[in-house]
Every structure is written in C-alpha cells, then in structure tokens.
C-alpha cells in the first residue's frame, strides 16, 4: 500500500521532471481556460477554430527553430533575418505582378535565394562566435530589421498596391494580400462544420514541411546534425565538419523562417513590414520551449505541442478573462508566461552547450 503510494509519488515527480513544472502549469492553465470557456459564454467551436487557425499560421515559424537547436546553435533569436527574406519574396512577387496562388508560389521561389544568401552569411558569423550565439543572433535580427526599415523606404518599388499613395514611393507598413495569396492554402479542402473551421490546406503544408524536417533528421546528414548539437567534440572526432553542419542548420532555419512568414501572411491576409518582424522571434522561441524543447534538444512533437499551447493561451485568455472578470489581463499573462518559459530554459544546465 505504502509502496504504491511511493510509486505514485515518484510517477508524479517523474512527470514533473520530464515535463518541467512551468510547462505543466501552462498546460493546466490552458485546460482550465478550455473548460471555463463555455461557462463564460464563449463559443467553444469558434475558439477551437481560432486556435487551429493560429496554429496553422505560426507552426512553420516555430518549426524554423528546430534545425539550429539540433546543431547546437541554440534558440534562433535571429529569426527576423529569415522573415526578411520572406518579406522580400512577398513584396517582389507582388511587384512583378503575380496574383492569386501564383503569387504565393513565386514569393517562395524569390524568397529562397535571399534566405540562402542571408542564411549563409548569418551561419558564417555564428561559426565565428561559437558560445555566444543567442545574444548575437538577437542583435543580428534587430540590426537587419532596422536596416530593412530604411530599405523599404528606399528600394524602387512601384506597385500602387504597396507604396504610399501620396508620396508614390516607399512601401506601406501593411499591405493587403486581397487578390494575391490571402488564404490560398487555407482554402484548399477547407472544412466547415457549424462554427468550426479547419484550414486543411495550411495544416497539410505545415505537415509536409514538418515531415520533411523529420525525414531529414533521419538521414545521414541529419544524424550528424543532431550529433554536432549533442557533443561537437564527439562529432569532430568522428570526422564531421562541424562548421559545415552548423552552417547548413542555420541556412535551413532561415529558409524555414522565410516560408513561415509567407504562410503566416496568407493566413493573416496582410504583409507587415518595418518593425513587425522585430517582435516575431520571441513568441516562436517561447512556443517551442513550452512544447518541451530545451536549448539544445527539440523535436517535431515539441513544435506541434508548443504552438498549440502557446497559441491556445494567446487566443483563449482574452476571451475568457474578459468575460469572467472584465479585465483583459491576457497581454500581461502572455508576457510573463512566455518570457518566464524562456528564462526557465536558459537557466537549465545543459550538457552539450560548451
């Protein structure tokens, strides 16, 4: 009897240890929100549709964390760099006059070389400063965003749908994608049952990329990448060119970020320029951490769980809180929870990060 009690206790402790206390709290919080939602008058199917939609927009941005975490480059605080590649793809695709689904395809095609170039430079830099990746990644992201702020003004864009109407030059802060690729993925096989809407196409696209990453991690090079992240000295002793693998991971992360922002835009319906990419790294970082990743370990499951939990809290708290106590504390809760999660991950001791 006593023994079973002990067992239960250790089972609980194991759960806490393997799952992490903050993660447990966040999961419990989301569950409570979901349970409360109908009681405070929120429509559950709408809420769930919201979560799924948000998941489909953000999933790939979170997925972009995976390669760099695997190769030991840490959390990709430099996500904005990839996002900028995506934005270049998006704006150029529109500038060249592509419309509809074609504009989405072309955006990806155009964004790819930018992502490869930026990613290579970024990866080269990160190889020079092993050990200080995260801080420098943050500032590389910030610098590139502010540099692009100037570029959006200077570059000779002409399309009347994008430039400021009065001045006739300089891109607008938000560009509507109506008539371009707004919802092109989401509309594929869209399912609608009452208030429940599922953007099947976007989910499939995410699944496609996630499966590709999963498959990559099962190949020879993918295995080498994981080993580099787990113990770079071991990998070197086994004849792996550590720098090249790291570079590859950074390029992959950057490219995924570029694709991620395009998918985000197709769901959201707008391209956001200027300071917008600035604020997109931290939510992605904390999402993957909430999903159970650590500074040097991450799986596809972490991405999926993390994005659902994070986006769930983002969408649920305002509605539930507002209806319950007429006080919209969702912003504050989100800031504390997501940054707290990052702090928690940073203070864990990790073997591989040397």
């Amino acid at each position: 009897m006593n023994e079973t009690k002990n067992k239960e206790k250790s089972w609980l402790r194991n759960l806490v240890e393997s799952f992490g206390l903050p993660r447990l709290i966040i999961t419990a919080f989301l569950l409570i929100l979901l349970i409360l939602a109908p009681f405070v008058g929120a429509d559950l199917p709408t809420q769930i549709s919201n979560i799924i939609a948000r998941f489909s927009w953000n999933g790939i941005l979170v997925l972009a964390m995976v390669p760099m975490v695997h190769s030991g480059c840490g959390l990709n605080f430099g996500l904005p760099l990839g996002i900028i590649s995506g934005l270049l793809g998006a704006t150029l695709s529109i500038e060249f006059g592509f419309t509809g689904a074609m504009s989405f395809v072309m955006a990806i095609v155009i964004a790819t070389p930018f992502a490869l170039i930026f990613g290579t430079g970024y990866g080269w830099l990160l190889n020079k400063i092993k050990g200080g990746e995260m801080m420098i990644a943050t500032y590389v992201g910030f610098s590139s965003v502010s540099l692009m702020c100037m570029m959006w003004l200077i570059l000779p864009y002409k399309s009347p749908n994008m430039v400021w109407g009065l001045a006739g030059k300089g891109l607008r802060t938000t560009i509507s994608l109506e008539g371009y690729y707004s919802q092109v993925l989401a509309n594929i096989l869209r399912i609608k049952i009452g208030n429940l809407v599922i953007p099947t196409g976007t989910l499939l696209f995410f699944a496609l990329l996630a499966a590709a990453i999963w498959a990559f991690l099962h190949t020879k090079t993918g295995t080498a990448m994981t080993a580099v992240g787990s113990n770079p000295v071991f990998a070197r002793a086994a004849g792996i060119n550590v720098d090249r693998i790291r570079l590859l991971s950074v390029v992959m992360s950057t490219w995924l970020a570029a694709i991620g922002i395009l998918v985000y835009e197709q769901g959201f319906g707008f391209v956001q320029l200027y300071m917008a990419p600035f604020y997109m790294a931290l939510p992605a970082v904390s999402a993957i951490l909430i999903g159970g990743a650590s500074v040097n370990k991450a799986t596809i499951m972490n991405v999926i769980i993390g994005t659902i939990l994070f986006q769930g809290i983002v969408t649920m708290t305002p509605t539930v809180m507002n209806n319950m106590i007429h006080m919209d504390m969702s912003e504050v809760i989100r800031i504390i929870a997501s940054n707290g999660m990052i702090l928690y991950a940073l203070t864990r001791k990790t073997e591989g990060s040397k």
Partner: protein
Amino acid sequence: MNNGNAPLLEMRNIKKDFFGNQVLTDINLTVHEGEVVGLVGENGAGKSTLMRILFGADMIRETGGYGGEVLLNGQKVQFNSPFDAIEAGIGMVHQEFSLIPGFSTTENILLNREPVKKNLVSEVFGDRMNTLNRTMMDERAANAIEMMGVKVDRKMIISDMPVGHKQFTEIARELSKEQLKLLILDEPTAVLTEKEADALLESIRGMAKRGIAIIFITHRLQEIMAVCDKVVVMRDGYVVSEEASSNTSTAIITRQMVGRDVDQPASAASSDAEEKKDAPVILSVKRLWVDMPGETVRDVSLDVREGEILGIGGLAGQGKLGIPNGIMGLYPAGGTVVFEGKEIPLNSPRSCLDASFAFVSEDRRGVGLLLDESLEWNIAFPAMQIQNRFLKNYLGGLVKWRDEKAIKEVTDKYISELAIRCTSSKQKAKELSGGNQQKVCLAKAFALNPRMLFVSEPTRGIDVGAKALVLEALRRFNRENGVTVVIVSSELEELRSSCDRIAIVSGGRVAGVLPASSSVEELGELMLSQVI
C-alpha cells in the same frame, strides 16, 4: 633542526579508499620544523591523495573521508575545508596556477586577504566596503617576496609574466600568510626553466632556514637530492621507503618507485612477440609535434609493426596522450605520419578515419560519447558517417536513410560481445557506469572495423572487473581481426601484461622502446629520464 619536541606534522596510519578501491594504506609521515621532505612516486602512487587529505580537500570528504589521524604540533586536527588547513598554517602550491590574470603580483599575493582601512560606509554596509590599504599591501607583498628570496616585480600584471614568475607569485602568496608553517609544493619546477628552477631550490633552502617545513613533490630526482633532508617514496598507496637523502641515490629511488618485490609473470602476449618482430612496419610516425595543453609532444618518431600491440607509457603530463590525439587530428600537430606507405594528412580527423584508423579517447565524457543519445547512436555513428554503413539508400543514393534495424543489430551484437550492462540498446549513454561507457567507446571503435586502433587510457576510472574485460576485449580484437593496436596508458603493469612492445615517453619525446618483458625498473628509468 630537530629540537626533540613533537614534530610539526605527523600523519599516522592514513588510509583512504575510493569506493572500495584502496589507494592509501597505512601511510605514516613525519615532518619537522624547517625540514624539507621530498615526496616521490609514480602517478597514481597516492601522493596527490595524501596531500589532499592533509589540505582538507572537499573531494576527500565527498568520497567518504579517510582513516587514521593527522597531528599538527602533537594535536589531532581534522580539516573540513582547505580554508581550515590554511588557518592551521598549511599552504599548498598547486600544479595549476590559481591566479587572477589581470591583477598585479601584489594583488594576487594578497588575494582576499588584503589589509583594509575602515570608513564610514563600511560601518553601514559591512566590512566589504572597507578600502584597500595599498601601502600595507605593497609592504606585505614585498616581505613575502623577500622571504622567498627570488626577485619578482611587484607591480607586474600576471598575464604579462613568464610562467616561472607566476609560480613564484603563488609561492609568495603562501609565504605572505603569517601562520604558514608547512608548505606543500606540488611539482613546482615542472614549468620552470633551469635557471628559475635553481632559484626556486635556493629559495626552498632559504625558507627552510626560516623554520618553514616543506613537502616537495617532483619527478626530478636530482632536485630532491639537491634540496631535501629526507626522501619519502610511495608506490601503490604505500610508503616504501623513508630515508635521509644523504643515505640514498637517484638510482635507488628509481628502483623503489617502480620496483616490485616479486617478479611479475611474463607478458601474456610476449609469446607471440617473437614472430611479430619481423612483421612489416605498418605505421611510421616521424618528427611529430602536438600542441595538446598539458600533454605537449615534441619531436616523436615511432614505428608500429603490423598486427602488434604497442604500448605507450609515461608519467602524466609528459606527452603520451598527445601522440594519439595529435595523429587523429584532435589537436594541432605537425610532422609526418605514414600508414602502409601512404602519408596521412594531419589535423584532419576525417582523413585518419578514412585511412581506417579508429581512436578511443581518454576523455570519455567529453570526446568519446554522445551522453544524451542512445547506445545505438553512440556505437553506429562514426561507422555511419565515415563508411556509409547502417544506411538505406533511396532515390539512387540521393537520400541516405538511417537503417534503425541494422543499427540495433550491431549494437546488440556488441552489447552481448562486450557484456555491456544496460537496460536496452536505446538507453542513454550518460546513464551507464564508467566501465560500461568505456565498453561503448570500444564498441564504437570496433564497429568501424579499423586496421589501426588507438586506445587512450582504456582503464582509467573504471573498476577492476571492467578493467580486465576491456583489456581482454582489446587483445581478442587484436588477435582475431589482426588489427594493429596502440594502447596509451599510465599503468605500466597493464601495458606489460597486454602489449608486445612498450614505448616510454618522457618530456614529450620517446625515451626508448622496449619489449614488454623488460623489467619494471628498466621502464621506470626511462620514464624519469627526460622528465620536464
């Protein structure tokens, strides 16, 4: 000198074991005021452990304390931390420098013992807000330097100093402690130039005259003879001799250090040694230098014959570990390495592995294993990456998919072959014991099907049972697969029992290559011949 009172230090019947492994047995050591005692012994003889006990190191307490008693001036003492030992008047200069690089000599000498002046702020916020008394600091540092008798610039910044001066700064720091009665010097001359070493010996004599007792640990026997009143020789956790230095000689000491009372059984492999004598040279190393911190290799030339087991022995820090690490490209190296008539480029782990070398590193946790990954990964990884094994090819070889089944098969094979104790092939490497981790490292190397295997310290830090298994596995691998093996180890006995020939490295050079059947004394002499 000996005035008939209770001796300054007396260690009685000191015993110490690490998890059942007896490392010190009934050690008795007496040191009188102003006496210089030389302490010699091979690595692993127990010198460091003995000194750690004396100095109250945390590591001793954490591993279950020690037996016997330590008396200072006739009173039993028990140190719970190095700070207690310092309080009681014991000072120790470690092999690694413990200095703040950006501080001046003075600041380092008085680190955390700075004389201070009180002020108003410190009344409120506590003593740490006292201001430093620079004039008094200078005075005290000058005193300590004078006491040492070697000229050191008080104002020089440590990072600008030659190594010798750093060493002297450390000694001056100990001397600046007023309560200092006994100073332990752990291989202080290892980093000094000849001139500096002479100065140090001179200063040791000076300190002894002032009544400070000194325990002097070194491998340079002539220094012992030059400066010590008494020589204590340790071997395998025993004190084998305690003599006035006038009654002994370097030759006697050497024999005592490595000698055995009874003749050891002849090397197990020596029977085949004869036939391998004529085997062709498979690996030829010429003028190899390796920049491995703490294990520098200088100008090593060495031939390895096909199918033999070559042992490389030597004291710690003399460069034996640098040889395999340098050849395998883990540390910057130069020289030529020729394998089967083909030159192998250095500084490139990949080309060594391509030449079907394999290496089991002495740094299991740092280099040898993916601690966070499964045994399967650990064992199959290099073979997969180097030889494209355990992979399934799709799309005409464009996609190289991990073949989990083949990986599991090979892992299970080695688990049973080497008797690796684990819950399954999916268990994480970090969860295994040291001995089993070592077996995983071996399995990793075996899985590469190498023609040439380097094994570095294969038995370090593992228990006796595992030791025998590991060595046996190596011998079998050598015999059955005809693989040439180079074993680097600090344990002479181990080399003598497993190898065909033994090369002894001393001072970063090969001091000589002897058949494994050579006597321990012969090998020991080589070991000490060029010590730096």
